[in-house]
């Protein structure tokens, strides 16, 4: 059971804004509709909408590809 994705690695495979495609980083905070990501490249923070993209997430050694709209939910409602 995964409650939230804080501290997991994320790679953006597809996003509505092409500038963000293929960027990698660590999820710092998860809200109902967004991820706050710390990018590897410049120590920069970005906030992205879950519903607007497809992501590859590595959480505790397991890697999977998931469409973002499936993650749109408050973390404590996954209990």
């Amino acid at each position, binding site marked *: *059971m995964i*409650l*939230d994705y*804080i*501290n997991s690695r994320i790679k953006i495979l597809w996003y509505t804004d092409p500038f963000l495609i293929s960027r990698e980083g660590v999820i710092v905070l998860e809200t109902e509709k967004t991820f706050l990501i710390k990018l590897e490249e410049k120590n920069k923070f970005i906030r992205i909408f879950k519903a607007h993209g497809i992501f590859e997430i590595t959480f505790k050694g397991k890697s999977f590809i998931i469409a973002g709209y499936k993650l749109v939910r408050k*973390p*404590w*409602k996954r*209990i």
Partner: protein
Amino acid sequence: MRRKNQIKKRIIELIELAYNTAKSGNLELAREYVKLAEMYSRKGKVEIPLKYKRMFCRKCYTPLIIGVTERRRMRSKILIRTCLICNWQRRYVLSGNKRSDKENES
């Protein structure tokens, strides 16, 4: 039961993460982690262990670090902990109670 253990594990992880984040100076983010842990505890009906419950302010959810966000004073065998962000206070009587032993451990 297994599910509750997993939730408890995640709560502890989040509170420790919040503590380390607050140490590095990002109090806002630390507060968000503690709020999330608190919500897991409420919705999953899981009790936060006493050691971890005392690591943050119950009013503003800031992790309490002595000298940075917390002040500790002793007044006639009563320990007074004050949050320096919101001035929340908590008093612990340290006169041979079982609870006081736990407090000394944490």
